[in-house]
């Protein structure tokens, strides 16, 4: 994983599926991936976190309609947060 400022323009240049860690959590950029690529990449990431409580920040280009059932199964919540123009940015957290 790579340390990278998540609000910098460089965040928009990440190759699909790229991950990095920042103060607010683990980031994953799934822009450009065809369905169900984003779903698989995000589930793989939250599975790798295991029982941890680290939030996941998802950089997406659309509402991830295929993701929600999988997040619900794993007890994760999703929050839409501010992102770059044209970006759908989500904060995923394990439900308390």
């Amino acid at each position: 994983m790579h340390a990278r400022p998540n609000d910098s323009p460089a965040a928009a240049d990440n190759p699909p599926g790229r991950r990095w860690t920042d103060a607010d959590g683990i980031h994953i950029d799934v822009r450009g991936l065809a369905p169900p690529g984003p779903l698989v990449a995000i589930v793989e990431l939250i599975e790798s976190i295991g029982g941890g409580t680290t939030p996941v920040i998802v950089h997406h280009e659309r509402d991830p309609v295929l993701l929600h059932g999988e997040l619900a199964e794993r007890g994760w919540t999703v929050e839409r947060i501010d992102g770059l123009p044209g970006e759908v940015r989500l904060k995923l957290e394990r439900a308390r």
Partner: protein
Amino acid sequence: MRLAAGAFIAGAGSRLLPVSIPFRFFGAAVAFHLLAWIALFAGGDEAPRFAGGLGWPLAALHLFTLGVLVMTAIGASLQLLPVATRRQVGSEHWPAAIWWFYTPGVAMTAFGMGVGATSVLAAGAAAVIVALAAYAVLLARNLAGAKGMPIIVAHGWAALASLFVVIATALALAGTYAGTPTIDRTTAIALHATFAAYGFMGMLAFGLSYILVPMFALAAVPDPRQGWASFALAVLALVLAAAAALDFAPALLRTAAVAAGLAAVALHLRLMTIALKTGMRRHLGRSFALVRVGWGFLVASLVLAPAVAIDASFDRVATLFGFALIGGWLLTFLLGILQRIVPFLASMHAGQVGTRGRGLPPTPSALTAERPLAIHFACHLAALALLAIAIAADSALAVRAAAAAGAAGALAFGAFFATVLRRMRRPKPPAGAGTMPAS
């Protein structure tokens, strides 16, 4: 703005329709599934040698095809294609209006076929054709504005083109029953069966599988080059089959069509098998056992196809082919997929309910109903086995036993669907994080 998973998917900017739209199509399919087995029971005497003509076997066939297969395909494609095309369906009124034309139209068509009432059949067929034409417009608009997943879009266009052939030949066959034939009946039946099953349903099933199978298996997107090769071979097979049906070098082109079809299926199944073997979720339970059985029957149908064409010595080979194609492949495959899609969509919808201070929404595994699905699984496979025996042994008794088993399975599937609806409307607290259901 913290939402339970799934909460904002049906918002104003969503590509998805409200869940009531696909679920009304799925609900009608569940009801027609039961009616189809009942109609087959009623036509038990003629069914083992059925090769066309008015009566309850024809009604049962169309309750399965129009009532279950196409009904589900419309609901699923309106919900899932926008995910691939990144374009909304548009107005919610169109899909609702399609359902209101299509559902009574299918019921009237089947009833008219069953009792031999051609005026009822014609009125029902007219409603079905209007509904399918409207669906074709919605599908074309969505595909024309597609922004992603070209391989799925291509399969959608092939399905749409096939739908036009299906509608045209349906009109020709209806004209034959009404005493005003336009094209040769044998040609019309060959085109109608090929383009309805392999063309419209087959192309939609293959195309949507490129999303659904990796999604359920949590696998990478299948290799697009092999997917395109499979698509090209499938289109070639359809074109060759059409030419053969129109009497252009029929023996040669029919053989070439089957060869191209088998190659297309082999490539497609290879990609699906890779997804299932490499995905994060290896155990997909009964639902994918049905999917695998369906794939087996798809291959069997293509193996049987040449025997139908050369008028093989076994005089019920056409009936066996139809059984493998409709009951074995499409119905079995679709019921396997449907039992996964329904709780999945229900969970996403219930996520909206979950935003009102109820915490997490119910999960797909909390919404599904395992026991009815287990009963359905056993009954459906028993019905298939008994139908194969019935055709081989020319036994009306075995047809009725198959229909009884199928009807019991359909009732169980209906109980599953009703349970999901009930749980979706009154979400219970989730049992805890876990994996997807075992079916």
